[in-house]
């Protein structure tokens, strides 16, 4: 090979091209390579030091959920034909991937009730920021009005990226009191005006509450309509939706939402410590040519056969460069495949049945836990698969959670730790998937109750153990730890 090239060594190829001053004349300071079985052993050992949803009874959610992933998804996403191609730049030999995109777009349009879907965005929060960018391109206004019911990561992501493209972000609080827990409709209407580019809320919101999406959409359009001479009419109404709830919740499209975005992980994607998953992104027809990312379209070949291509590419960075509607290139095709296979597996009836199951079990769990001493519901709004509780002010949340996890039950997310908001102190966010049975929920109730009792009165808790010799060190709680 060297002779064909006309050099005497591989080094010569580098020497002739890279200036000496920027050559690395030492070995990288990294360990030497390992045989496959040792790499497997190392990665297995690292995995074993994580407590996964396999190792404990987990009620963690807040954006990603431990739903069951059917076996056929594992099989399909490991097929070389789906796993190893690049983006389908050559449609004649990429019909499989392009058809998957087309089917995925169809499924997302059905779920959201919006006619236009892209082939995937990165994930949930950045999809919200991408929707904001679409709104800015659409109407050129300077402000986003957002509900405080958005996920804290969504708000932070939107602020980061909106700062880049020069937008102001105004946050509307949630209601308090008996009708608390949802976006304050009066503050919402007051905050939105003819300078509002997009009005953004979450459905259900971060605290699990089902929002009145139709009312929020209508109010945003009424409050922000620039009138006949206003820039491009009303603000763009954006909803960050939980796709698994859309079997039972009215679709965003039917509620008057213009752009629906969301985290796709609940649809057949594993937790993976937070990614990769996919972001869904769907909109009304009028936004088609401002959509970010890949879109597959149907066409025919020279012989008249049905086929699929990447379409409307004049929106995209490789054609439009600085005038593109987004910089996105590689997105989440394989995760979107898992999403559409999951929806096909659930099917037309299954997505409703699963939604009803989540409603019933979540309701049961919420009522069961809210009856515990020192625990109350954060709000009374309907919930689908997640709800927020408030622990008594005198109970140390971190200590309660520690006691629970030592008994193999992870009771949910400490919201204050995630959001940093003072009003979120003592708020526990509990997620229920179809993998959590009634017995699991009952166990959570028992363990949480014991933990709260112990924290309120350590002496009583100790005596209640009745000298069963289960004391471990100074810890009065029986050590039933799993995988810790």
């Amino acid at each position, binding site marked *: 090979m060297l002779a064909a090239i006309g050099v005497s060594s*591989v080094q010569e*190829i580098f020497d002739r*091209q890279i*200036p000496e*001053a920027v050559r*690395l004349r030492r*070995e990288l*300071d*990294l*360990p*030497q*390579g*390992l045989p*496959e079985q040792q*790499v497997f052993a190392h990665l297995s050992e690292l*995995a074993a030091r994580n407590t996964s949803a396999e190792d404990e009874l987990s009620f963690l959610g807040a*954006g990603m959920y431990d739903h069951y992933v059917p076996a056929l998804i594992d099989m*399909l996403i490991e097929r*070389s034909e789906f796993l190893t191609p690049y983006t389908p*730049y*050559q449609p*004649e*030999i990429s019909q499989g991937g392009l*058809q998957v995109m*087309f089917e995925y777009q169809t499924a997302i349009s059905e*779920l959201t009730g919006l006619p236009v*879907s892209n082939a995937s965005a*990165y994930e949930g929060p*950045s999809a919200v920021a991408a929707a904001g960018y679409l709104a800015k391109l659409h109407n050129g206004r300077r402000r986003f009005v957002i509900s405080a019911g958005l996920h804290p990561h969504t708000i*932070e*992501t939107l*602020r*980061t*990226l909106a700062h880049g493209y020069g937008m102001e972000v105004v946050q509307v609080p949630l209601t308090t009191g008996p009708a608390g827990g949802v976006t304050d409709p009066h503050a919402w209407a007051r905050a939105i005006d003819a300078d509002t580019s997009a009005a953004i809320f979450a459905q259900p919101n971060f605290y699990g509450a089902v929002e*009145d999406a139709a009312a929020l959409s209508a109010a945003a359009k009424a409050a922000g309509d620039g009138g006949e001479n206003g820039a491009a009419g009303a603000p763009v109404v954006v909803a960050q939706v939980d796709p698994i709830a859309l079997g039972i919740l009215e679709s965003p499209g039917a509620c008057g939402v213009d752009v629906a975005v969301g985290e796709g992980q609940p649809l057949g994607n*594993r*937790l993976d410590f*937070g*990614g990769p998953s996919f972001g869904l992104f769907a909109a009304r027809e009028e936004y088609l040519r401002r959509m970010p990312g*890949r879109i597959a379209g149907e*066409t025919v070949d*020279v012989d*008249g*056969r049905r086929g699929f291509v990447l379409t409307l590419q004049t929106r995209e960075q490789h054609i*439009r460069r*600085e005038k*593109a509607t987004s*910089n996105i*290139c590689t997105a989440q095709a394989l995760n979107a495949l898992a999403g559409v*296979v999951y*929806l096909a*597996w659930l099917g*037309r009836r299954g*997505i409703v049945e*699963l939604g009803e199951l989540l409603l019933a079990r979540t309701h*049961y769990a919420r009522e069961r836990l809210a009856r515990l001493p020192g625990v109350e519901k954060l709000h009374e709004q*309907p919930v689908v698969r997640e709800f927020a509780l408030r622990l008594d002010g005198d109970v140390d949340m971190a200590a309660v959670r520690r006691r629970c996890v030592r008994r193999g039950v992870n009771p949910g997310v400490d919201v204050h730790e995630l959001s940093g908001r003072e009003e979120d102190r003592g708020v526990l966010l509990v997620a229920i998937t179809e993998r959590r*049975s009634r*017995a699991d*929920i009952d166990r959570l109730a028992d363990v949480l109750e014991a933990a709260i009792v112990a924290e309120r009165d350590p002496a009583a808790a100790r005596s209640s153990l009745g000298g069963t010799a289960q004391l471990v060190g100074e810890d009065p709680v029986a050590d039933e730890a799993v995988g810790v």
Partner: protein
Amino acid sequence: MSAIDENHLHSDPGIDGHHPHHGLATAAQGEAASPLQRERAKTIFQKGAPGRRAFVCPPSEVPDVDGEQLLPARFRRTSPPRLPELSEPEIVRHYVGISKRNFDLDSGFYPLGSCTMKHNPRLHERVAALPGHARLHPLQDPDRAQGALELMYNLQGALAEISGLPHVSLQPSAGSHGELAGVLLTRAYHEDRGEKRHKVLTPDTAHGTNPATVTMAGLAVVKLETDADGGIDLDDLRAKADGDVACLMLTNPNTLGLFDPNIEEIAAIVHGVGATLYYDGANLNAVMGLSRPGDMGFDIVHFNLHKSFTQPHGGGGPGSGPIAVSERIAPFLPRPLVARLDDGSFTLEHGPAPEGSKSIGRLRGFHGNYGCFVRSYAYICSLGADGLKDASEAAVLNANYLLARLREHGVAEYLPLAYGRLCMHEFVLSGGPMKKELKIKTLDLAKRLLDFGFHPPTVYFPLLVDEALMVEPTETETKETLDSFAEAIAAILAEAAKDPEIARDAPYTTPVRRLDEVAAAKRPVIRQALD
């Protein structure tokens, strides 16, 4: 050919200039009427029947509660989403069936320039699927996710060493997301110094993501010219580098496959006006262990784990685009970062930035595409310091060998190297003479290559090369594969010399032939019409 070889299309034209035209056209017409083909063209929404299902819902186990109490009717969906209704075997057949209409890296040579289609070891899929990684919740308490945090910490360290830049954030979801992080970092850096710089220099060879990113970050693109040797035109750079410039975004080796010989001077000019130097890591596969962006003077680098570090591309993602930065940029890095404490344990803060933080904030939810980190970390562990260097050396050797073989075949007369004599890990040919002499375009050559069982190189990029063909063989390929690819190109040119129509009408052996992209864009049909 196996991946795209449907049983009714078995004619392999080989590399002997065999003329497949008429027989295959007939086959295609006959096929349009075949029941099997009609079935193949259906989407999953056109299959199945009412009542069929795969999912069996578990019993609720909890007491029945009035539906109105669970969810008032005004919030309820009136008509459920019209998802398909199929049994599991139907779903499996459907997706396995359409999978066979994909060409993939496991089936053949994939020399797509700037995409680094290197082998994806199956070990990586196995370790990523371990429940301790795959079923780990992102909000698990850090003290019970120590394995994951150690993995991320080690990966940060390895990327820092490979890039020569000490501070790493793994958060960006893909290369373009990393670019956005990089430009926002640059902006934050200048703003922190009280400077409003609004221009970003990008060479005309840059990936389209560079200028698109600049706009999204609220800055303005200023284009730089390429000089006669394929590098940045230094005079143009000197003329445009001023106090308004925030950053120069550069790929090195660039998209022509050339290492810019003036990189030290470029860095000096850019730093001289107080701007930062950004490294687009798309082409890092040329220089791992051989030359480091940090040592070249770059302040910010993004990596494409789905290119240099073997995260499988999945037909368009997932990717992962970590960034590494110099000391002066570090305070602005996105949060959260993984850190090691004095006791040897690892931390990660889920919550908001602490008071006084200069971080640009989050770019997405949670901590990045961890599943990709697992695969790329496994890759780095497998190869080690010496192996990474070997990989880059082999990638560069392969590219230069393929270039030499094409010359031997006389291909250079029609497809000359656009710039230079040698190349790094990829090279760009110009199809201009081919178009003039042989009457076939680069697109025709690419489509004809499909009949020979190869994925074509990147075409029509970079934009400054007429009829560009950008070839990146990667270290994965054997000499035999490179030889047969060179022979195929030569055969197609020879064929075109006799009858250019063959290439112009290609491909013939693929599941579909050339598709009407204009019609697709003019009247977009982007979802299945449902009853």
